[in-house]
């Protein structure tokens, strides 16, 4: 394969990664998020295969029962790693899909922002605390005692130098 | 000095102090009369006043503490004047020192304050509150002066302070060596005596003589006695610090009377200060002068 072809593959792999990551960051639909993840993983896997590629080498399978192999072979380790990585990806994506399914069932939406808001509300409701919005007052009991009747308030007054 | 010698001195000194104090009271009243174009009281009038008060029929006490207050007021000053050396007698001046003296002179005020407090008269309490504030005021320059002199003479012992001043005649008197401190001290002494314009704590028209409001008969008599000792002690301290102490009795007495005469001559020139004005008056110039004096002394 030509030098150009290799670079093109590299660009392709990295492009897949970039597209996938951009998708992960920008998408709001759960299913698209999973897809974006799959795209990015494909890119990473391609990158891994590239790491084992040798110019002019054949696949690491010994043909014809000969233990002598004059032909150079590509590195088998990345190939094995890719195999593993793909399966891992499948498992994770399946799990993510299952979660998405359940989330849609429960909240009736696949929109991440809506789901997140519902989740926050649920967490707060489960804990029984007041909602934490940005306009909230400083949290409940602070180490400083609130203004007490006369003695303490006067105690706090200080002559300053 | 032998133990017995000290005891003899300790017996003699209050007597002398009391006598001199009586005459100081007389002098003050005479000066006041002169300024006001009056004749003034006769020679033994202060003594008569005391005798009169002690011999009154009605002596009302508001409780044990009322009595104890008078006892502490008189006793405190009696103890205090034994710590000031007079010609020929050192008392316990070398066992106590200036600092102790300064603090012992606060005991009578405390005693009086307790006694007045027991009387349960709000006017008395107000008066005490003012008196204590005034004490806070005039003690600040006073301790500055104590510090300056003690530093200058390298001693806290009044006997040594006096001896050092007498070593070279008038030239080595404190007032010559530390004139600024001496002026500050005079201010402080003035305020300490509680005469006009520093008598807001008495304020007869306003709080009915304040601390004295419930004092009658021998209670008031006791206070008169105390005043004699107070005048003597205060002036003796000043004389010992700045005017060379007592070389001999005539000179010593002359200096004492001179010192008391100064504030008395000025007393009627000013209107009475309010409490906060007392603080302002005493904390400004006397303190500035005092600190300047100390700075000069130390450099």
């Amino acid at each position, binding site marked *: 394969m030509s030098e150009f072809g290799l670079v093109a593959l590299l660009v392709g792999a990295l492009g897949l*990664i970039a597209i*996938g*990551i951009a998708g*992960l960051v920008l998408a709001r639909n*759960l299913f698209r*998020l999973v897809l974006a*993840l799959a795209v*990015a*993983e494909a890119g*990473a896997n391609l*990158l*891994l295969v590239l*790491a084992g590629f040798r110019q002019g080498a054949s696949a690491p399978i010994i043909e014809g029962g000969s233990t002598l192999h004059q032909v150079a072979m590509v590195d088998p*380790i*990345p190939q094995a*790693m890719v195999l*593993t*990585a793909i399966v*891992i*990806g499948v*498992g*994770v994506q399946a*799990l*993510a899909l299952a*979660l*998405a399914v*359940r*989330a849609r069932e*429960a*909240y009736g939406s696949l929109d*991440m922002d809506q*789901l*997140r808001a*519902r*989740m926050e509300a*649920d*967490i*707060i409701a*489960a*804990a*029984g*605390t*007041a909602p*934490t919005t940005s306009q909230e007052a*400083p*949290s*409940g*009991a*602070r*180490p400083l005692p609130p203004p007490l009747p006369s003695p303490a308030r006067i105690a706090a007054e200080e002559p300053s130098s | 000095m032998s133990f017995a010698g000290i005891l003899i001195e300790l017996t003699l000194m209050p007597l002398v102090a009391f006598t001199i104090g009586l005459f100081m009271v007389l002098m003050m009243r005479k000066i006041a009369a002169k300024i006001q174009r009056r004749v003034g009281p006769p020679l033994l009038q202060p003594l008569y006043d005391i005798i009169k008060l002690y011999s009154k029929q009605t002596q009302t006490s508001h409780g044990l503490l009322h009595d104890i207050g008078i006892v502490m007021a008189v006793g405190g000053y009696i103890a205090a004047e034994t710590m000031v050396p007079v010609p020929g007698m050192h008392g316990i001046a070398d066992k106590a020192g200036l600092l102790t003296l300064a603090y012992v002179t606060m005991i009578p005020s405390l005693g009086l304050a307790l006694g007045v407090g027991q009387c349960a008269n709000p006017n008395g309490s107000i008066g005490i509150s003012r008196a204590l504030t005034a004490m806070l005021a005039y003690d600040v320059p006073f301790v500055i002066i104590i510090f300056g002199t003690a530093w200058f003479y390298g001693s806290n012992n009044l006997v040594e302070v006096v001896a050092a001043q007498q070593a070279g005649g008038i030239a080595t008197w404190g007032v010559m060596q530390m004139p600024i401190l001496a002026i500050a001290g005079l201010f402080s002494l003035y305020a300490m005596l509680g005469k006009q314009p520093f008598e807001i704590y008495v304020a007869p028209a306003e709080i009915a003589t304040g601390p004295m409001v419930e004092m009658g008969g021998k209670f008031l008599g006791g206070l008169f006695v105390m005043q004699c000792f107070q005048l003597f002690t205060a002036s003796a301290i000043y004389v010992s610090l700045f005017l060379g102490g007592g070389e001999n009795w005539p000179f010593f007495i002359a200096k004492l009377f001179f010192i008391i005469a100064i504030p008395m001559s000025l007393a009627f020139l000013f209107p009475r200060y309010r409490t906060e004005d007392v603080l302002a008056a005493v904390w400004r110039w006397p303190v500035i002068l005092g600190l300047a004096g100390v700075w000069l002394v130390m450099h």
Partner: protein
Amino acid sequence: MIALTVALPLLAAFLLPLLPALARQFLGPLVLLAVAAFGLCLAGNALDAPSVVAIGDFRPPLGIVFYADGVAGLFVFAIAVVTLLLWPCATPNGQPDPQITRKHSLTLLMAAASCALALSGDLFNIYVFYELAAVAGYGLAAGSRTPAAQVATFRFTLLGSLGSLLALIGITLIYFRAGSLNLAHLAELAPSTLHDPLGLAGFLLILLGFGVKSELFLVNSWAPEVYATAESRVSALLAGLISKLALLAVVRLLVLVFPVPEASQLLLVLGMLGILTGELAAYRARDFRRLLAWSSIGQLGAAFVAFAIPGPAGLMAGIAVALHHLMVKPALFLLAERWGGNLAQLAGAARNSPIAAALFVLFALSLIGVPPLPGFWAKYLLLSGLAGEPAGLWWLAGLVVLTTTVVEAVYLFRIIGTLYGHQQGSVMQSRTATTGSGIFALLLVGTALSAPLLAAPLQKMATQLADTDGYVAQVISATITAPQRSGTAP
């Protein structure tokens, strides 16, 4: 024996759904007990010399090795014990949980993966078992089956997967550059090949990837969501155990392959920010679980800072901090299981549950670092390690640790004040939680009392962990002792 610590829990996890009900209940704990015993043996043996096993009898640069030094043995033991204590409860709310077998399976898988993380000497193998732990963790986190948990887990899964992706890219980079995955081999190759921007970029990507699980700052925003929604025991496992193992993997890489200042400083800065953000965020928390989440972010930040210190001193401090957190945080999560979420509802809880309140006080004091509790020694080692470094960033980190401890004390004591206060709230009761955290408390006190005895082995472990040359020599010598595979087997 080394491989058994991984193989047995895996086997048990596979077989668990097939077994009769009675056997299901006992298989997991039995296996974990066995693993704990193995861990103790490994740690004991390793104090003389670390042992190495080449999986499949292939010589190290080719095959995968498991390397059992003292730290690994200790962590295997800790994994087994902590997992046992946090074993999913079969009847969480009085009713039997129909999903319990699955949870047990996942827990066993997680334990196996954790053991492998502690032992593995191969970069990609670490990645695989990190993923196993992660997937098991996702499953368990969603196991409370509330919608909120599922959304939180989904977000966690995505973030974790992206992290893993980055880690994979990092591994690719390193493999591409060095041509090997074996840590010992990499350690030999590193000075000539990996100590350049490229190698460090690989390390950075791996750090960020594994950092997701170890609650590294920047990639830890999943923690408050997940811990607030998952079952407390799962949170305890994730915060107490998995985070430490991910951290340990990073540390192995750091010590063996990247002993360069840039890498350390990266850890230091991120750890420092982790402490700051975690502890400060916890200061305002009103929800017990999120408070614990933020607090554990802070504690792990401290561990990162500790491991950033070069040399055995830093490693010892890091191990101490990590082990201390391992004892305290799960126990606190168990208390959260008992007490529920709202901090305000804890008012006066000390009257209803005096023992639990007393345990909380004990753990809080240890977290703050009150001598003679172990937390103090951990903090002391950390700080004296930092003080031993030149002024600058290191001392700044020390300052951060000191000041955030004050913040930590304030929020923990605020809870203690609520617990022992005079108002009355309502809290739920659960006996098992107290028992579990009571055992942790006993461990804690035991550690405090036996601290002088434990110090020497700990020091030894840290030295072993820091000993790169020893590691390389040991692994390479495994080449010689291991019988070569050339068709000799029957």
